């Protein structure tokens, strides 16, 4: 870890995340690969046991307005770099388009108003960061299932990929943008929504405006922010480094139910 700065350690977690990006994580990079099969054993059991527990597709607990936490710390990107996003901010996302493509019969290109015209869902849920903190917020958005039904998912589609507007690291092949993926088990869940509202107001930039994913049975990094493209695919291996998400490509588990 880095030498002392004037910040407290709690504030230092982003530095730890930066250390991960710069590649000093022995468990995710080449020198720790020998441990992979043992470590992936945990992921294998977690996925299958938790999926068995969730077979009836229960909802994550929904809280009341009185339970909403006074603050909700933004995590990850708090404002995407680059002029393209800045112009969206200046025009209040008037020119923003959400693309739904890949293995769908009717690809979509929707304005934010068109997304908001779809039947909404509002839920007050707990956000669980894998670092250990949690906050409670109210989210309003369109169920992902509705978008996918409108676009008519092809039968061979197995995963839904969320492409984001925030570039985490500069790479020659543009693979440093944030992205995430979930399978259809989570994609079709009623609480899996693309949120445009938070705590009764428009979704703030720090929380992923204009659209972010809420996938309530997973920890924080699955909840992609700044989503502008939803792609249905049959496998994840051809996207970026092939592990199904920006953090997954850097050693984190794809299944994040714990």
């Amino acid at each position: 870890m880095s030498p002392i700065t004037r910040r407290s350690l709690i504030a230092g977690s982003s530095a730890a995340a930066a250390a991960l990006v710069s590649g000093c994580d022995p468990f995710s990079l080449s020198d720790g690969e020998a441990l992979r099969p043992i470590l992936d054993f945990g992921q294998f059991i977690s996925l299958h046991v938790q999926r068995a527990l969730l077979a009836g597709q229960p909802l994550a607990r929904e809280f009341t307005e009185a339970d909403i936490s006074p603050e909700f710390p933004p995590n990850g990107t708090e404002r995407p770099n680059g002029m393209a996003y800045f112009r969206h901010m200046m025009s209040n996302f008037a020119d923003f388009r959400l693309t739904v493509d890949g293995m769908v019969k009717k690809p979509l290109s929707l304005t934010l108003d068109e997304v908001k015209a779809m039947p909404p869902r509002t839920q007050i849920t707990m956000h669980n960061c894998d670092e250990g903190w949690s906050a409670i917020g109210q989210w309003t958005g369109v169920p992902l299932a509705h978008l996918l039904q409108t676009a008519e998912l092809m039968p061979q589609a197995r995963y839904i990929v969320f492409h984001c507007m925030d570039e985490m690291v500069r790479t020659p092949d543009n693979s440093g943008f944030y992205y995430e993926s979930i399978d259809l088990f989570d994609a079709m869940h009623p609480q899996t929504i693309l949120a445009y509202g938070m705590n009764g107001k428009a979704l703030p930039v720090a929380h992923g405006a204009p659209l972010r994913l809420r996938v309530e049975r997973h920890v924080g990094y699955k909840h992609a922010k700044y989503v502008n493209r939803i792609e249905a695919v049959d496998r994840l291996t051809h996207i970026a480094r092939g592990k199904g998400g920006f953090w997954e490509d850097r050693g984190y588990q794809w299944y994040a139910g714990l």
Partner: protein
Amino acid sequence: MASSEPNGEARAAPQPAARPRREVMYRHTVAVRLTHWINVLILVLLLMSGLRLFNYHPALYWGNYGYRGVPAFVSIAALEDIETDEPVGVTTIMGHNFITTGVLGVSYDANGEPIAAAFPNWLTLPGGLAGARDVHFAAAWLLVLNGLVYLLFSLFTGHFRRDLLPGAGELRPRHMLTDMWNHLRLRRARGQAARRYNVLQKLAYVIVIFILLPVMVLTGLTMSPAVTAALPFLFDMFAGRQSARTIHFLVANLLVLFVFIHIIQVIVTGLFNNMRSMITGRYAIPPED
């Protein structure tokens, strides 16, 4: 039942120094020995990866939400003394600040360079958050599997009833006080008494096996958003997600305390004999004085 009295052949040869031969009993079954040593490895991995995870957000709260800025029971931070430019580790417990530089908040690496980390690097698993999560969760599943093997075996063989369940007589205050007094004097059991666990030992094992370890597993599960979607009563059982995290940390401390006392007892009551009994199963009964 056999006793530590000299047996037939000893009586047949009435030598002057009729020192009774040390009797050896078969104390630990192979299942107990195997699950014990697997547990040692698992608990070390869980502790070291768990402290690493704690370091990513070194603060404990009550209720469902908790983040930087919410009042914390316990927090550990690294600050800098602006007068000396020296790093200072500060541990805050219930609003009281303690300077813990060197151990908590700020520790030093092999070159004497300060490291900002709640728990020092030598106590935590190397690797980042992703690695610590992988190790912690894989080890947690192994703990559950190992625990189930132990539980099933112990139920079928009567290990719990025979070896761990305290008898009514043992729970009488007078007996408990005598046993406590023996512990304080570091007096080891001999003869017949050494064949069985003493009452404090039984209670310690029962509390660890039936209370502390299950609470660790359940509070761990309460931190999983997928598990609480399926089993929402876990939130109510532990008063919320952050409360569960706090209980998880405190009970981990109790387990560490148990292990410390356990190791001291193993040494005090005969390190070689105890280690041999947990490796080969054979335990030599210390003769009566």
